């Protein structure tokens, strides 16, 4: 999961202190350094010969697989007839559709469940039930009901994204400051006004954390969603390559999933900073 919940406010520490060069330096250099150390350790592990090359291929082998998967070579287009970016594009499209549906429903559910106690009592067991299910357990049913094209994949990703968004939103709404709500009511605000002006702004920061978790859940279900007829798709690529013990391509797929996940999470954090500037400051 790539949703850590460090408040971004640490980044905007007041300038002018003698240590302010350290922040940017640490942020730029340390990740790079850890990457270099990782690559060196990897090269060392591969070169040591303790493990078979199927288990620990050389970084250069994986790089070559990456080039092969990303280009047309010897008249062969990438992997399984599609280039890496095409696999990634299809996967991202599915994740996007799934997340939009899952998070949309989840946040709406959370708002209702947080505001109306009896709805919460009715729906919570179902949500917890759904949350406990590994997607692989019910994916076969989705195939029977929805076929083998996009519908079961998007549905699975939506089902994976819905519970975290719903649970986080519910908790956030419930935790909305009672004092403010009562004050607003005393000043004559309608129920709708209270939700719009107090509950939603108070709940937004935590809801955003829920959304980031939801995207993470959906993203980590990608291989399961593309288990059947998953090519083009990065998850399908990983599954197919592992069927042939093709470790370098599996690693290329894993890196593609992981790195695109990091980028998406970074984008979400950016959106979060703009949408909820009061986060961590109230």
């Amino acid at each position, binding site marked *: 999961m790539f949703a850590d919940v460090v408040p971004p406010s640490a980044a905007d520490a007041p300038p002018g202190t003698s240590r302010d060069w350290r922040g940017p330096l640490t942020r730029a250099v340390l990740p790079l350094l850890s990457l270099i150390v990782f690559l060196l350790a990897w090269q060392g592990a591969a070169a040591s010969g303790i493990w078979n090359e199927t*288990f620990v291929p050389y970084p250069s082998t994986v790089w070559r697989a990456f080039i092969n998967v990303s280009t047309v070579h010897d008249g062969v287009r990438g992997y399984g*007839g599609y280039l890496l970016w095409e696999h990634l594009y299809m996967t991202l499209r599915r994740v996007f559709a799934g997340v939009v549906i899952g998070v949309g429903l989840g946040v709406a559910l959370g708002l209702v469940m947080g505001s109306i106690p009896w709805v919460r009592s009715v729906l919570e067991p179902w949500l917890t039930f759904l949350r406990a299910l590994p997607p692989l357990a019910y994916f076969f049913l989705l*195939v029977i009901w929805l*076929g*083998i094209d996009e519908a079961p994949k998007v549905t699975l990703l939506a089902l994976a994204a819905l519970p975290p968004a719903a649970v986080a939103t519910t908790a956030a709404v419930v935790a909305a400051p009672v004092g403010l709500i009562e004050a607003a009511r005393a000043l004559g605000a309608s129920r709708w006004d209270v939700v719009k002006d107090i509950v939603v702004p108070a709940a937004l920061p935590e809801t955003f954390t829920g959304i980031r978790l939801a995207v993470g859940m959906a993203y980590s279900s990608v291989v399961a969603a593309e288990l059947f*007829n998953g090519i083009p798709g990065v998850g399908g690529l990983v599954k197919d390559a592992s*069927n*042939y013990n093709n470790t370098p391509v599996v690693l290329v797929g894993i890196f593609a999933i992981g790195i695109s996940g990091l980028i998406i999470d970074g984008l979400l954090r950016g959106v979060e900073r703009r949408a909820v500037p009061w986060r961590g400051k109230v």
Partner: protein
Amino acid sequence: MKLKKIAALAATLAVALTGCAIDRSKPDASKPTIRIAYQTFPSGDLIVKNNKWLEEALPDYNIKWTKFDSGADVNTAFIAKQVDFGALGSSPVARGLSAPLNIPYQVAFILDVAGDNEALVARNGTGIGSVADLRGKRVATPFASTAHYSLLAALAQNGLSANDVQLVDLQPQAILAAWERGDIAAAYSWLPTLDQLEKSGKVLITSRELADKGKPTLDLAAVASSFAEDNPKVVDVWRQQQARALTEIKNDPDAAAKAIAAEIALSPDDVAQQLKKTVFLTPDQVASPEWLGTDGKPGNLAANLESASQFLADQKQIPAPAPLSVFQGALYTSGLPDALTR
């Protein structure tokens, strides 16, 4: 205080649960263990396992049977040196013996040859009457399986390539679901799914016909080279039990079906039907030039594996096919044909 209590409780639970792992095979620490990877396709392997023939014939060893779902997983287990014997299809064996895997194992037995138990079926109402009619249609098969190899071989024999049809990667249960929904026009699959497909479809070609045309797919049993070198006697006993199972399938199919049915969740009648449709060689045939061959004279199986290796290279799953000599060297023919009948 509370946190400490919870932590203590969690630790106790963790320790207690690791102690209670359910494992009914109780290895005897004083004996060496033979580790066998098996799969659940009907074969003599399951008869040997169910009747405990190996345990009887090798009382000085622990026998540990581990179930695997695919040849790729068995290959991984061989690479990790976690198994001594393993059952896997000809396609994963070809993959394992080619670079870059180069798994040090040898083919020591032929469990079965795919016959009418694997076939290409077209759905009724699609108007498909022959393999050539599949052009542009959606055809499903489990990728990386023997059926995948057979499907592409059947297409090639009819002048079609993989790009002329829409290939869909589906496991047998999903093939059935997609078939019922009308999402696919044809599928190359195996029993018991195949039975269901045949009810509402037309068989275009079976693996038996492909085998007759020189493109057989087989289920093989491999032994780790180092294990075979160190324990030739064990391999001999193991081969004899496998031969005994083949003889039982021929002579007493009901008993064979019962033993296999006990290992996989199917009725003995269903298994008996499947056994009839699969080609089981006799021990003599296994050691004939057409298949494994004899000591010093590796059989034609090597050429089949070379062709499977070429298939993988065409699929871009391996950089280049391995030469015939690699596969000839990987046939364990020591003591054949006498070793089987003794």
